[in-house]
Every structure is written in C-alpha cells, then in structure tokens.
C-alpha cells in the first residue's frame, strides 16, 4: 500500500482511526468499508483516501486559522476603544474563492473517474449472473443460467485478479425499496420495484462477507441481513450442482410433508420436486444447506427452526410469516421434514 499523508494523520489520531487503515486481512469489523476485497470497493477506498487527504488538509488550515483568531484576538483589558474597522479586501476574497474552485475541480475529476470505472465496467462472457430480489424482509437469489434458486445466503466464486470472473447482480424488488450493501465488496445499490438496477463484484479472497439491507423497507428492516459466501471455483461448482437437484424426500417424514403441503405453508414456500411452489417466501428445497434462517437473524439449528415454525415473531417480530397455530407434535413433524431438505 502506498504511504500517504492521510495514513500518517490517521496514525496520530488514536487507535480508533488507525484500525481503519489496517490491511484487508484483519479488518476492524467484518463490515469495515476500509477493508475492501473486491474491485469496486477497492476503487472507492482509493478515492476515499484521496478525498480524506484533501479534506484533512483543509481542516488543518481552517481550524488553525480559527484557533489562532480566537486566541489572538480575544478581548484585551483596554476598554472603550473599538478596533480598526475593516470592510473587506478584494484580493483576499478572490484568493479564497479561486483556491476552493481549483480544489473542487480536482476532487470532481477524481470522483468522475471512479464513477466511470465502477458504472461502465464491461460484462465479460465468463461472468456469473445472479438476480437478487428484495422481499420484506429477506433476499431471493436466482441464478438464471444455472437453474438455481436460493435465499438469504449468496454463493459466488472467487475472482482471480489475473483472470477475473466477476459476478453481476440484477437487482429487483418484490415490494418496497431495499438496498444491497456488503461494504467489503462494493458500495450499495438500491432494489426498487419497477426499476431494475445492477451492480457487480469480483471478490479476490474466499470467505464470508457480511452486510445488510441499507434502505428502510418496513418493520424488520434491521434483520434483513446479507451473507455472501465467496468460494473457490471447485466449491462453487459443487454447491451449484447440489442446489440444482430437486428435493430428495424420505418416507420417514411423510407426516411432516403432509402437514406442510396441506396447511398454508405452500402458498408461500417452494420445495422443488413437490407440489409446494409458492414464491412469496424463501425457497426451501435445500434449506438445510444454509447456515442461518430468518434472513441471517438466527443460526439454522433444530431448536431455532422449531421456534420459527411455531411462531416466527418470537425470533423476528413483524416478519411476514404468520404463526400457523400448529400443535407441538405437528411442529416437530414439520421440522423433521424440513431437516431432510439438504
């Protein structure tokens, strides 16, 4: 990383700020915008540091001026006489008009360049396309060319900077406005009904990247969390293969399946290969392959799954899934069925 004056200043400003300047490998927070792992996020950080340098320099100059004025020209003991009256100075005023204009032009050009880099990027042939659909309050992911539908946990392949395989996201909304924001991968882009948007990411390192909805979308906006799993190409291909299979159901859980298909569950949920084909809620075909439920709100444990089926509002008050009023044995049966959806 290049050594810039802003880093020196950041270092002097105390531990809180130093943390931002640490390398991407050890982020201060899993959602630190200064720990980029993808080209759009990296371009933004480079611009940000430049803007920070310029603004920090302006701050130092003007603050020093203010401090000097306040200390130097505080009232002296000599009462009665007014100080010399000065009404203005064309030269000075011209100076502090022209210099800011020059600074603004430089900052503008720097920003315009990055806008171009991020917004006008080419869509290479080997890119992965994913359609992201925002729902109150969860994420639907569809891989049109790979025949995969999943929810809440996005899986994408790592992109080698030498041979980039970026992922292009088409952003749609099923209801209100949402915003896709995984700070280490890219800036946010809104999902607006009737207004398709797009963005792209090309993560350089494997791992789990966190984020969440960044446009207020209703009661449970806070628990519309984002999890992006960046995998090696082999892992990703294996995941795609598993996800594109229909559900494999064993007869041991037929009671749970019967309850699932005869109550309102199937109005909203789909399980590929069965009669369940609802689209209002997450696709459950491979539910057990996910680490979390309720859009990242809680880990996908048998206990949480039971509580969720029993009454979702205990885990996520205000979410759209209703409590179906199932008895304990029925809940257990449905949970046992869902646990076979791998």
């Amino acid at each position, binding site marked *: 990383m290049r050594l810039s004056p802003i880093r020196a200043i950041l270092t002097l400003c105390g531990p809180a700020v130093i943390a931002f300047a640490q390398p991407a490998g050890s982020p*201060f*927070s*899993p*959602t*630190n*915008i*200064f720990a980029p792992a993808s080209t759009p996020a990296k371009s933004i950080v480079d*611009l*940000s540091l430049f*803007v920070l340098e*310029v*603004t920090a320099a*302006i*701050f130092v100059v*003007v603050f020093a*001026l*203010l401090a000097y*004025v*306040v200390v130097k*020209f*505080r*009232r002296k003991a000599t009462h009665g006489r007014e*100080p010399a*009256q*000065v*009404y*203005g*100075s064309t030269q*000075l005023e011209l100076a*502090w008009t022209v210099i*800011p*204009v020059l600074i*603004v032009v430089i*900052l*503008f050009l720097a*920003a*315009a360049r*990055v*806008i*171009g880099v991020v917004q*006008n990027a080419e869509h290479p042939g080997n890119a992965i396309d994913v359609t992201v659909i925002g729902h109150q309050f969860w994420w639907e992911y569809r891989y049109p060319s790979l025949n995969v539908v999943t929810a809440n946990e996005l899986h994408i392949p790592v992109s080698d900077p030498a041979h980039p395989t970026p992922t292009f996201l088409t952003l749609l909304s099923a*209801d*209100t*406005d949402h*915003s896709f924001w995984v*700070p280490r991968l890219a*800036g*946010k882009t*809104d999902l*607006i009904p*009737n207004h398709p948007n797009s963005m792209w990411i090309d993560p350089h390192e494997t791992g789990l990247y*966190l984020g969440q909805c*960044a446009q*207020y979308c*209703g*009661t449970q*906006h*806070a628990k519309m969390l984002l999890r992006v799993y960046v995998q090696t190409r082999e892992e990703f291909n294996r995941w795609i293969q598993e996800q594109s299979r229909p559900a494999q159901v064993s007869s041991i859980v037929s009671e749970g399946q019967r309850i699932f298909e005869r109550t309102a569950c199937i109005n909203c949920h789909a399980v590929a290969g069965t009669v369940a084909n609802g689209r209002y809620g997450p696709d459950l075909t491979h539910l057990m392959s996910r680490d979390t439920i309720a859009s990242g709100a809680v880990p996908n444990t048998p206990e949480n799954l039971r509580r969720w089926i029993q009454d979702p509002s205990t885990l996520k*008050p*205000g979410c759209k899934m209703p409590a179906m009023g199932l008895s304990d044995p029925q809940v257990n049966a449905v949970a046992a069925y869902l646990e076979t959806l791998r």
Partner: protein
Amino acid sequence: MSTESITWATPQAATPPPLVEQLHHWVATVDHKRLGILYILYALVFLVAGGVEATIMRIQLIRPHNHFVSPEVFNRMFTMHGTTMIFFAAMPLVFGFANYLVPLMIGARDMAFPRLNAFSFWMTAFGGLLLYFSFVGGDGLYGAGSAPDVGWFAYAPLTSQTFSPGHSTDFWILALLVSGIGSVGTAINIIATILSLRCPGMTLGKMPLLAWLNLTMAGLVILAVSPLTAAQVMLLVDRFLGGHFFDTQAGGSAVIWMHFFWVFGHPEVYVLVIPAFAFASEIIPVFSRKAIFGYPIMVAATLCIGFISMSVWAHHMFTVGMSAAENTFFVFSTMAIAVPTGIKIFNWLATMWGGQIHFQTPMLFCIAFLFQFLIAGLTGVMLSAAPFDWQLGSSYFVVAHFHYVIVGAILFTSFGAFYYWFPKMSGRMYNEKFGKLHFWLFLIGFHLTFDFMHIPGLLGMPRRIYTYEPGRGWDIWNLIVTIGVFFQAAGVLVFACNLFWSYFRGQVAGSDPWDAWTLEWSTTSPPPAYNFAALPEVKSRRPLWDLKHPEDPDWHYE
C-alpha cells in the same frame, strides 16, 4: 405629531389586563413580534418532543439486541423525530426569528401582511397538532400502527395503502400539507416585507445581512415547498382515489417520489442553514467589535448558495441507479456549493481577525458553529463524491453528517440567537453563568454523540435499524453516542430554566445591552407594538454605529 408624545404613550404604569384577556390577545394577535415569539415557543415545544423521541431511539441502540422498545415503536420514533425536527422545530424556529427580527431590522412597523402572518402561523401550528394526533387517531379502523412509520422522507411504495394501512400515513401527509401552506404564506410575507417596507435610506445594499439571508431563505421556501405539497397531493390521490403515481405494482414510479421529495429536501437544508448563517452574520461582528468583512461577497455567496442548492437534490439518490452521467452532474453541482459556503467561513474568520472578541454565550455558540460547520462541510464534500457515497449513504455516517449541520450549525446558532435577542424580546438579561453552563454541557454532549456517530457508519452500520448484531465493532461507539444524549438533554434543561427564570427575575436589559449596530437595538426592549415611534432613516449598514461614532461613520467607507 411629535416624537415625544408617542414615546410617552408606551404602556408602563397601566395595570396588566386579566389573564384570559392577555391570552386572548396572544391568540388573536397579528403583531409580528408576538407571532414571532409564538413561532419560537411552538418550535421549542416540538424540539423537546423530537428530543424525547431521539432519546428513546438512543436508549434502544445503547447495546446490540436491546429490547427497550419494539421494532414498530422504534420505526415510529425515527419517523416522528425527523418529521418533527425539520417541519415543526427547525422551520418554525427559523420563521419565528425572521418574523420577529426582519421588520425591526429594516425599520418597519410590522410585516407586509399581518393577517396572512397570523394565518400562516396557525396553519403551521395545526399541522404539528395533526401530526401528533396520529398517536391517537392513526389506528383508524384497521388496528394498524398509530404514529407514521415510513421514515421522514417516506419513500414510495412504503406509503401506499398496501404497506401502510390505517391512517398514520394520512396524518403525516396532511400535517406536511397544512404546514406547507403556512410556510409558503410566511415566505411570501417575508419577501414582500423586505422588498417594500424598508425604512428611508435603506437600499437593498444597506440592509443588514440577516435581511438578505432571510430574503434568500424565503425564496427557497417558495421554490422548495411547492413540489413537496404537489407530491403530498399526489400521494393522497394514490391512497384515496386509486391513483398510481407512486404505486409501483400498477406501473407507478418509486423514483419519481424520490425526485419530488429531494427537490424539496435539499433546498430545505439551505432554508434552515441560511438563517443560521444570518444569526452568525449578526452576532460575530458585534462580539468581535468589527463590521462584517466583505458584505457584498457575503450577499453574493448567499444568492449563489440559493441558486446552486436548487440543482443538487439527486445527491441523495446516488444509490438508486442513476446513469454515470447523471451521477457525475450531481457530483459537480454538489461540490460547487462548497465554494460559496467556504467564502462565508473565511469572511467570518476575517471579521474576527483583528477584532476584540467578547466570549459571551451568543458568541461561544457562534464559534462552536464555525468549528462544527467546517467539519460538516468537509464530511459533505466526502459524501458528494458519489462513489464514496455508495458506501457512506444511508449509513450512520450520513446521520452524523446531517446532524452536524442541523444541530452543530443550525441549533447552535439558534441558541446563540436566543441569548442574543432574548434581552430585546423580554426586556431582561439572561443569566450569563447558566448560559455558559448550557453551552459547555451542550458542546460536550454534541461531540460525544455526533463525533462518534461517524464511526459505526464507516464500519457498515446502516441507519434506521432498531437493533444490530454484536461482533460488528459497533457496540462501543453506540454506547458513547447514547451517553452524549444525556449531556445534551441536561444542557437544554439548563437553557429552559435560564430563560424561564430570567424572564421573571433577570436584570432589566435596556434597549441596547450589546452595544450593537442594527436598528432593533434603537428601540425599547421589548419594543412597543408599533416598533419605532418615528421611522428611522439610515445612511449605512450600521445605523447605530453612525450614531455612536459621528466622527467616523460607516457611510464614508461603504
């Protein structure tokens, strides 16, 4: 008619009328000073209401997964907090001071349209009552949420009947519609007053800066509030008459609402901050004992800000998927506005340069304003770089940034203005010691809250979430931010007690306690109903300086 006979007639020995009659006078008044004070008191009530809502939010966010309030209540709180503070605290405060000060400072006896003035105030007042009535009436017959919970910019389609059943959103719409009519009325009044009621000798170029800034503000109000009112009418049509302006499921556009809202919303920031500049432009010279530096360029910069502010709105929409060209344009216009605002800061500093700075409470608030507005401006430059905004927009960084503007600049200078003009309005001096205590408590609280609020934004914390996950590095910052709130609340308490106590027990102020230079200080404190016994005649921008320094009057230099 001799001057003496009028001065002599000021009410002094007369016994005060009974309370009911006094209250009736306040309700029925068309006097710009009384309406100004009504506006200000009304703003203070809503400032407290909005402050309580903010405090509830901050207690909820003091640690991750807190259960102080439910998500529904939290969402209502941030909607009500934003709407209250902008429309029913900041706007009335600005209008109140404009009402009170503009006629006095330009040597007029009242506003141009006194009855329109009263009408406008009561429209605004009823708007606020409508908004708060939603706590009672918002349920409607649906049993849906009480107060509105759509956020203060109420993005479509969250405001449609589908997503917001019940009447809470209707109350929000009507409150803004009604108070918007009041705002436009007052703006027309301010413009007419300044253009037609200036005293003899006061050309436009000899007006106090406060009048120039309020003229610009009023022009912006007319331009900005009208689209908002239009959008509210469209939203009502959508909700009640089956219109589809913003109904995305029927082909309407959510983005159009954003444009309508921000075409109002961004000039609105300047509607609020330009009067803040006005306070600073009056207080800083008096407490530095120097004339304002570069009056013509200050006026030019103000007009420039007014014009540019009409072309920057979509920087609130960098993340909604505009084309690269559109984004680039709004980056440029937004950055350009930094130039005239920069000029202002330098001119204030130049005014203080070489002066004799008195550190009384009004000046302390203005110095803090300069410091905070500098930072707010610089974080604004960061946000104006669209790619940086793709990260920072809708995060706590933005929340910190605009609170730096609204609290750090607007509220700070307003507090300064309270202390500066309190002796004129009440005839009594405030208590300086408690004024300084208020300043320091509020300063500490402000910086604890809003300095540290930038950090969770940089660490990926979005705004408007009722709770957050542990392990994101956000916990400690949110704790500090919440602690700051209590310092601010203590400061406001000291402020309220000080004003209340001083009103009854403060020292008699006299007509010119600050040895100031503008016309309002030439009449008694409080001024009589007719303001000036004889209309003053001015020759320069500082008529009282000329009076006090006949050997070296300003008109030699201007």
